């Protein structure tokens, strides 16, 4: 069973993101990076699958050269191969363009039985790339997976989070899964593998190499960000005083009015 995991490098979420008003972008210079946490669950799920069913895990990312660090973390967890797509034309790609690019890259790398993504990246919080890749590759998808139940020669069965609760879904292989945090506990990279990962050659591909049409990605994406801004600061607190019966009702009323519950 060959598994490919798409992983994304994101700014460290311990740092409150700052905006650069001039460029309308989030400041990334000097900010520590991390692998988007759900992607680590995806890597772990991939490693477990190949441990049980044989084969190997490959990791793939789109971004500049610094994203090799993220790919090396995938390798140090146990992935066998890593690939990076880096092309200046990809800057400002939206989720459509990113899934198009990843799907092209996957096709150019090889055949996979299972493709894994995190349920969303914690910078963009969109959660759309996984399903987008599945569509571009013409394969089945199960999103928001919190348990992989069974794998047969031609199907994979997983439990996913549904609006009403949970459901168990059987999909034909190949399948793309997007992973919830509760799916597993990602392993830590061991230091021996970290050293090996640092020495691994990571092939870098551009749009031409993967057969992606540069006119469809980056600034030519179907959607664009017009403006980024920090949300209005929290309104100052309001004290509710009086008889218990009364203030309990007022409190709930306020929460309902504010659409909090």
């Amino acid at each position, binding site marked *: 069973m060959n598994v490919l995991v798409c992983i994304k490098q994101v700014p460290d979420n311990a740092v409150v993101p700052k905006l650069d008003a001039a460029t309308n972008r989030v400041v990334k210079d000097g900010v520590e990076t991390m692998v988007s946490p759900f992607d680590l669950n995806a890597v772990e799920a991939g490693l477990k699958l190949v441990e049980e069913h044989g084969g190997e895990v490959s990791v793939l990312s789109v971004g500049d050269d610094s994203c090799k*660090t993220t790919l090396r973390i995938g390798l140090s967890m146990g992935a066998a191969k890593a690939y990076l797509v880096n092309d200046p034309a990809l800057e400002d790609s939206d989720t459509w363009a990113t899934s198009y690019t990843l799907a092209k890259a996957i096709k150019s790398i090889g055949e996979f039985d299972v493709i894994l993504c995190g349920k969303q990246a914690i910078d963009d919080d969109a959660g759309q790339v996984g399903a987008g890749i599945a569509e571009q590759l013409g394969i089945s998808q199960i999103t928001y997976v919190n348990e992989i139940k069974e794998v047969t020669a031609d199907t994979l069965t997983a439990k996913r989070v549904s609006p009403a609760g949970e459901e168990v879904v059987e999909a034909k292989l190949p399948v793309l899964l997007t992973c919830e945090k509760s799916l597993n506990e990602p392993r*830590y990279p*061991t*230091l021996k593998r*970290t*050293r090996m990962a*640092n020495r691994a050659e990571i092939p870098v591909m551009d749009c031409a190499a993967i057969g992606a049409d540069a006119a469809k990605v980056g600034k030519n994406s179907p959607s664009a960000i017009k403006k980024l801004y920090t949300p209005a600061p929290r309104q100052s607190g309001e004290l509710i005083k009086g008889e218990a019966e009364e203030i309990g009702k007022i409190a709930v009323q306020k929460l309902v009015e504010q659409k909090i519950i």
Partner: protein
Amino acid sequence: MDFKYTEDQLALRRAVREWAQSYLAPKAEEIDVNNRFPTETIEALGEQDLMGLAYPEELGGAGYDAISEAIAMEEISAACAATGSIITGHYLGFDALYLAGNAEQKEKWLRPALEGEKYAAFCLTEPAGGSDMTSNKTTAVLDGDEWVINGVKHFITGGAHCDFLCCFAITNKEDPRHGMTCFVVEKGNPGMKIASEDNKMGIRGARTAEIVFDNCRVPKENMVGELNGGYRLALDVVDRGRIGIAAMSVGIAQSALDLAIKYAKEREVFKRPIAKFQGIQWMLADAATQVEAARMLTYYAADLKEQGVPFTKQAAMAKIFAAEAAHKVVDTSLQIHGGYGYMKEYPIERIYRDQRITELFEGTSQVQKIVIAGQLLH
């Protein structure tokens, strides 16, 4: 001269920090409160390849360099100083085998120690003799094919929890300097008894024990290095270990500084964060300078060790400087925390106690000065 971290070192710091902060840090308080040696941590350290980080891969180590080892020790001690001490004890425990062991001994004890299968302890200190090893009383006498060890050792880190220890015993009472020998004693040897475990001020999870050798018989094959070569061997082991204590001190200091910065930004008095007051800023600046200087001296000593050139003086300098820097920084951090810093619900209270050992073990600060002066004047 090259002040740049290698890719390996950067990746290692990231990996160790992430692991230590999520695995060790949440345990730090519990093992302190319960005075508990975290056996489960030993296994986890092995899984992370931290039990033999800077030893050759062919022997079972992870093949990193000495600076990487210092970086790892920093990150581990920043998360939990007791664990830093537990690893230090382990490294000291098997280092004699690495330096002087024969091929069979390396295969039998060193490899499993480096791979994290066996936990080692360093068994040198005695009630009457600490840094003054010539006052040691524990003896070993050859009886047929076995050495018979008698005596008492104390303050032995992990003594009650190790799989084997390297015990240094007098084999020639006339001239201990040239009459001390190292022996491997394995767990379960009927002649080795744990008399008690200590109730320490800090690094409480790194439990230390008093061990009694009562006609403890070990096979001849357990002698490490040359007969009567143990004094020099012990000094070499301790020399190498000092860099680890320096790195441990840097990690403790860094964690105290980080807590102080965080607290200073959060804590408001007179309607502004205390970090806005110059008095606090200067305290932080001084503390950060201490940390950085200690780190540089530690890496320098580690680099000399890596190059295979003499490093005794620099290791002692790094150890005393870093330990004393850590003392100042934890004190500053606690002061910045104000009354809260004195409360057990703030980790600086534990770190303040944990730090103190760095000025005492592996030679007190005063002993480091003897070592440094000896190097200057000889």
